[in-house]
């Protein structure tokens, strides 16, 4: 006979083993930016004098005309601060005959993960997980207006558009600099590793070319839509001068934003810096990389919390999908933050039922241990799926739940339930009386 005490000891033991499993490398550590995302600024304007200095001073010829300065790219901005996003007008001088691109990125960094499960050239599926903590929290490349056709063609492809191809076709890949050198961890995922809840074996560091390529996939995984990542809106004149409106969206990360103009890979301007300020009630969610007005999620959670209790389902079913639909939050962060939120209402429910001895501990804990094992595996799978897959599966879960709820409103179920509810009330009364008598 298993006594209650033994079972509890066993559970504590399992929890202790579970907590030992936390590997230091996998522990949450968003505070360390492994590498600054800021590219070295081009030293282009400083070189032209070098050759002339070396010319011997005895030369009889009149001083050689100074070599024409290499075409320089410059830019100026009309303001250096914005409040909770805003438009900044960028004016500058590019190179005649060469399209100009603006790269705009935030100093704040966020996490992004990408699971490569597409068959490669040989038809082998790599099953590799790429993870970075250093992606800019906001990132956009502005292209000249005449690239709009290419932009529209990629936009029409929907979520399957390829970021690297779109950049290349527009010629905008020269401006993809800030995220191209971020530190990326790669893991070889296997089914076995997934079962024991591990990310898999860590692969050796990526080389520069591979880093750039994977960084593009991570950028797309984080920002998803082409409209967020690319804007064909620069007005460029024949002499190379250009104007553009750089829009820092509402809800973007606070802090510094860098703007750099590119004519080609080596020809770029000094970065201009814009500071984005946010004030209460806007708050920045550092792990999600989004700022939001905290009043709305508060009211939403309150409403769903109430409705959840009334309909007899925890808030998680409604909170998760609504949060990811309303705000640009990563599904991993939403799932990982909603879970502890519902934990406390569950705990208070357990406490209330246990007071009136309405829990069968043997049943609850036995099934609980099975769930403990499941709960160990699940969270690791969240980062292996994309937001679209998350939405798709969640959509079906909600439809199944709706069917279950509908079944509970059918007359047959209601009649049966009425009888059971009567027993429940009767038992509760007795239990409360017993508790009082003590």
């Amino acid at each position, binding site marked *: 006979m298993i006594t209650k005490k033994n079972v509890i000891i066993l559970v504590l033991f399992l929890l202790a083993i579970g907590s030992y499993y936390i590997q230091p490398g996998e522990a949450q550590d968003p505070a360390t930016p492994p590498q600054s995302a800021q590219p070295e600024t081009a030293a282009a304007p400083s070189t032209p004098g070098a050759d002339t200095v070396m010319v011997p001073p005895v030369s009889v010829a009149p001083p050689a005309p100074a070599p024409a300065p290499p075409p320089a790219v410059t830019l100026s901005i009309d303001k250096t601060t914005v409040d909770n996003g805003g438009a900044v007008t960028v004016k500058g001088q590019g190179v005649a005959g060469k399209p100009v691109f603006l790269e705009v990125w935030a100093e704040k960094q966020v996490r992004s993960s990408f699971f490569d499960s597409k068959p490669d050239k040989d038809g082998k599926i790599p099953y590799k997980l790429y993870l970075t903590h250093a992606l800019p929290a906001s990132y956009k490349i502005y292209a000249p207006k005449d690239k709009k056709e290419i932009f529209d063609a990629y936009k029409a492809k929907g979520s399957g558009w390829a970021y690297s191809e779109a950049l290349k076709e527009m010629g905008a890949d020269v401006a993809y600099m800030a995220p191209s050198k971020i530190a990326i961890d790669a893991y070889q995922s296997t089914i076995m590793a997934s079962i024991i809840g591990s990310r898999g074996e860590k692969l050796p560091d990526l080389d520069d070319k591979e880093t750039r390529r994977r960084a593009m996939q991570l950028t797309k995984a984080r920002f998803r839509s082409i409209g967020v990542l690319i804007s064909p809106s620069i007005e460029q004149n024949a002499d190379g001068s250009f104007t553009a409106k750089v829009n820092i969206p509402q809800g973007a990360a606070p802090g510094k934003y860098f703007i750099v103009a590119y004519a080609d890979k080596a020809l770029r301007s000094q970065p201009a810096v814009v500071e984005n300020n946010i004030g209460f009630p806007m708050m920045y*969610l550092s792990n999600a990389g989004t700022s939001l007005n905290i009043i709305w999620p508060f009211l939403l959670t309150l409403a769903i919390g109430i409705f959840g209790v*009334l309909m007899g389902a925890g808030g998680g079913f409604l909170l998760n999908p609504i949060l990811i639909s309303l705000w640009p939050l990563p599904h991993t962060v939403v799932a990982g933050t909603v879970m502890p939120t519902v934990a406390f209402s569950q705990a208070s429910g357990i406490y209330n039922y246990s007071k009136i001895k309405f829990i069968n501990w043997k049943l*609850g804990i036995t099934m609980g241990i*099975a769930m403990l094992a499941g709960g160990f595996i699940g969270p690791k799978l969240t980062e292996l799926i994309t937001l679209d897959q998350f939405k798709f599966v969640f959509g079906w879960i909600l439809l199944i739940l709706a069917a279950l709820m509908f079944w509970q409103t059918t007359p047959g179920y209601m009649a049966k339930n009425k009888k059971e509810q009567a027993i429940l009330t009767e038992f509760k009364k007795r239990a409360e009386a017993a508790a009082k008598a003590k």
Partner: protein
Amino acid sequence: MIVEFWGQEFKINIIFGCIGAFLLAIVASMFGFGGGPFMVPLMTVGLGLPMYLVVGSSLTAIFFNTVMGTMRHYQFGNFDMTFFLIMFPAAILGGYIAPQIAKRISPLMVKRVAVAGLVLLGLNLLGLY
């Protein structure tokens, strides 16, 4: 396994129950919900237990999943403190307000609204409208 509850005895197939609970826990922790509405039918329909036994015991079972899921999500860096501090007081407050409202409205009505809402939200997530 024999489950005893308030003087009554129920014989259940615990292996079946545990496999169901295990699979449910994977999905629930992966998508970040508790899983109560699925756990209750598993225990009542799947194991044939009466409702009054299931309400408290199912909550106990899913709590294990929530705690483990929370720990693992934290470990994989999926937890955002600011976000939690915004939602947590609202959830607690909701827990206090809900029972006051529950006395005044019919549960059948709530369920019907919930079905409609869930279908709409589900179809929205599937991108059907």
